[in-house]
């Protein structure tokens, strides 16, 4: 790997890490989501600076080219991330559903003529 390539990779990884840390600092990204991103940024940095790690990984997973390894890792990361989002969305949806239902109970509207309590003897045909 040429020095040029290394510099590009390192600059890219450092920028990514910087943006992530800045987002967490400004509370625009919650820590619980940040860890996956920090992990990805660090992985970019290590793989970019040290070509032997990438070669080792390529051998480990049995890929033919180092570029395949990069694509593999990238796609795996995106998959993991969207799975995490799906889990979060499912949970959020459930929470929102419960909230809306609670709200409906609180906002219950009664008819002008209140319904009689069931333990009282009902009159026949009240319509």
């Amino acid at each position: 790997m040429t020095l040029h390539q290394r510099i590009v990779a390192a600059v890219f990884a450092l920028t990514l890490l910087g943006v992530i840390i800045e987002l967490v600092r400004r509370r625009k990204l919650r820590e619980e989501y940040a860890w996956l991103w920090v992990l990805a940024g660090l992985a970019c940095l290590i793989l970019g600076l040290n070509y032997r790690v990438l070669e080792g990984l390529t051998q480990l997973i049995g890929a033919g080219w180092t570029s395949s390894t990069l694509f593999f890792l990238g796609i795996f990361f995106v998959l993991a991330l969207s799975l995490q989002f799906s889990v979060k969305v499912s949970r959020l949806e459930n929470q929102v559903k419960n909230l809306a239902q609670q709200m409906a109970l609180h906002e219950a509207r009664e008819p002008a003529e209140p319904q009689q309590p069931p333990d009282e003897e009902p009159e026949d045909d009240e319509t």
Partner: protein
Amino acid sequence: MDGGTLIVLPAHNEAERIGPVIRACRKHVPGAHVAVVDDGSDDATAETALAAGATVLPLPYNMGYGAALQTGYKYGLATGAAFLVQLDADGQHRPEDIPRLLERVQSNGCDLCIGSRFLAGTPYRQPFSRRLGMVLFRRIASRVLRQTVTDPTSGFQAMNRRVVRFFSRDIYPVDYPDTDVLVLLHHHRFRVAEAPVTMIAREGGRSIHAGLRPVYYLFKMALTIPLNLLRRERGV
């Protein structure tokens, strides 16, 4: 409403049909409390329901049949209803049949009683695709529950407070509660029974089973029924 009966009508844009249904409910089940869950209607469903003498539970936006129904369960739980009946707000289910369902639950013959349109032997026309699905789910439900279930997809049901409490939990599948709910109930050792009802074909309006939804519905049932059997969370 402690100890009474609650009738739940989930409704989405049913202003034209809901009034007579509410009045019939109050007539045929005197003393019952009628609650309409207004599932984000754009029309005058809420006003019509109020005028007909029902309590209205307004959902802030359209959440679908299952979530609307569950709102009714939660209302029943909060108000202390001993029994709960659910039926469609569009007049497909006849309130005359409510006492028959209710009686089965009140006599403690079962925890949940399904109103079956097939037990009475009255003809009910529906498209071939739906009939196919119906046969399939009937088989599945009957096999899992080890008893004959003729109409597992019926939304006309009566239940006791134990079932209402169970359905109020997050365990309840709010998108398309159907055959899988019966499997879930069986899994948690509730007793399910059926009673004959007459179904009236709906005129106008839109059914929840339209478009591509049956496909998703089939997929969901294929996924959730085995999964419910795999989940080993017994006890209520």
